[in-house]
């Protein structure tokens, strides 16, 4: 009974790695998602529809394709990957950092959507009021727009985090399946299923993933509600 509940050392490693990778992915996504959401919501420009489509690509493409594209661009011989290696000695393939990048790309559309909705609900009149009180553009964004967007930003971040915990196709394609380095929960589960007598482990890991997923969604909803109450009209 206890062996069904407690985890082995390598299972803990997969859990911690998943949490770490998902956290880094969210932190990497945040500034870009806010900037992109702002651009798409507040600015008219030639190519806006194209940007919107590109942002949503990871949602509709097969994750393996996303991983493949990442290899092309960020791989050791890719344009950006090669530059990172030469300039900073930074390698992304086969590393947890790479796993974070793959996860970040896959979660990006979710975050942008959540932030856009939140931004659209910010009363422009409040920004006008701030203008009349002497607040310039950056000032207004930092003191009025951003604080009022916060429910959406946080909800988006927590949802992206929960989704990021489950990222498989892009991660395994880009950084492959290295225990302790890139073997996150979903990859560990997949490996367990390929291994003889791995059923019990697979079951444990699956249960863990479900629990984490539900916890993440509840947290996101609770946060959003609490903040909406505080900021409501």
């Amino acid at each position, binding site marked *: 009974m206890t062996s069904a509940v407690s985890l082995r050392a390598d299972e803990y490693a997969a859990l911690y790695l998943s949490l770490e990778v998902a956290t880094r992915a969210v932190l990497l996504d945040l500034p870009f998602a806010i900037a992109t959401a702002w651009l798409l919501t507040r600015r008219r420009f030639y190519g806006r529809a194209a940007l919107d489509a590109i942002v949503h690509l990871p949602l509709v493409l097969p994750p393996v394709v996303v991983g493949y594209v990442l290899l092309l661009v960020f791989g050791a011989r890719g344009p950006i990957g090669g530059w990172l290696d030469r300039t900073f000695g930074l390698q992304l393939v086969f590393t947890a950092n790479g796993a974070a990048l793959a996860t970040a790309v896959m979660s990006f559309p979710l975050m942008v959507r959540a932030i856009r909705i939140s931004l659209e609900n910010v*009363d422009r*009149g*409040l920004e*006008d*009021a*701030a*203008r*009349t*009180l*002497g*607040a*310039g553009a950056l*000032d207004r964004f930092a*003191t*009025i727009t951003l*604080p*009022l967007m916060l429910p959406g930003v946080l909800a988006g971040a927590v949802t992206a985090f929960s989704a990021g915990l489950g990222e498989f196709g892009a991660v395994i394609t880009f950084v492959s399946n290295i225990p302790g380095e890139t073997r996150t929960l979903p990859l560990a589960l997949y490996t367990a299923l390929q291994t003889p007598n791995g059923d019990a482990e697979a079951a444990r890991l699956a249960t863990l993933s479900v629990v984490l997923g539900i916890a993440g969604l509840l947290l996101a909803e609770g946060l959003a509600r609490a903040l909406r109450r*505080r*900021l*409501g*009209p």
Partner: protein
Amino acid sequence: MLEVRVCKLRGDWRLDAEFSMPTPGIVALFGRSGCGKSTLVDIIAGLVAADSGRVALDGHVLLDVAQHCDVKPERRRIGYVFQDAKLFPHLSVAGNLSYAARRAGSPEIVSFDAVIDLLALGPLLARRTQGLSGGERQRVAIGRALLCQPRLLLLDEPLAALDAARRAEVLPYLEALRDQLAVPMVYVSHQFDEVLRLATHLVLMDAGKTVAQGDLGAMSLRPELRAIIGAEAVGSIVDAEVLGIDSASGLHRVRVGAGVLALRGAGAAPGSRWRVQILARDVIVATEAPRSLSVRNELAGTIVAIAADEPDADLVSIDVGGATILARITSAATRSLGLHPGMAAWALVKSVSLSGRSLARAPLTKTRA
């Protein structure tokens, strides 16, 4: 001096406004809903672009389309009180006020403490904005706009969203604001009683155009105003000085023009100056000195004009020695009495018709230091 001359086209609708106001003072932008008052105020604040024109305040040019000059709203130092307050929900009342104070320009026109006192905001400071009543929200909004040390204060129908009781609660604060601070104000409203109590200067707007402007007393006689406020509300606005209180009746004896009226009023000290609105429908015209009538208020004067009002009604303007009274009588009466300009006549006003509502304290014009 505030000088405004702007044009804006929006589809079929066109704004074509021009007015000027001596500063300090309050100019009321008055007109029916949809006549362009709010758009005009947004253009003065810089929140909406004009297609052509110029806005200048005390010599500072804020907008001159021909010269490609358009000062950003955050640099114009114009405070704005919105119809729905627009308080920042993520900040407390104190937070909203200090938001303005921290970004205020110099010189300081009004201190933080003075604003708190003037608008009785002390008990509200720690509160969050969500729990405030409509009247409290507007007082905070006014305080916040004042704390940016504005050269001009714009108020876009600040009382429109309030019920009668809240409106009565906030109006005295606006009067105090006008009397104690030298900040010029542009007050937008479609309620004439607010205009009566607050304004020194009136600009009438109709269908996107400024149709007339002038000081309040002179404007009360204009036909353009009659067209907007309707026949029932027509009346002249005159300056009145309290002479004393009649101990027998409790009525105040008030000088209007060269004559004296007895009015019901609250707490009017002898020597104080008031503004009285006398509705035309409450005035009777007599061609002989009246005797044996229940009407006690009579003002002797000369008819200066007779204008046809509705079918079968005429508006008679009577000069009672420096002030003009309007009377509405039937055209039949005009004919049978043989009324004509230049004729001596008496304007008779029922005392009961002059209640606290038509009395307003005359604005004390404060000169800039």
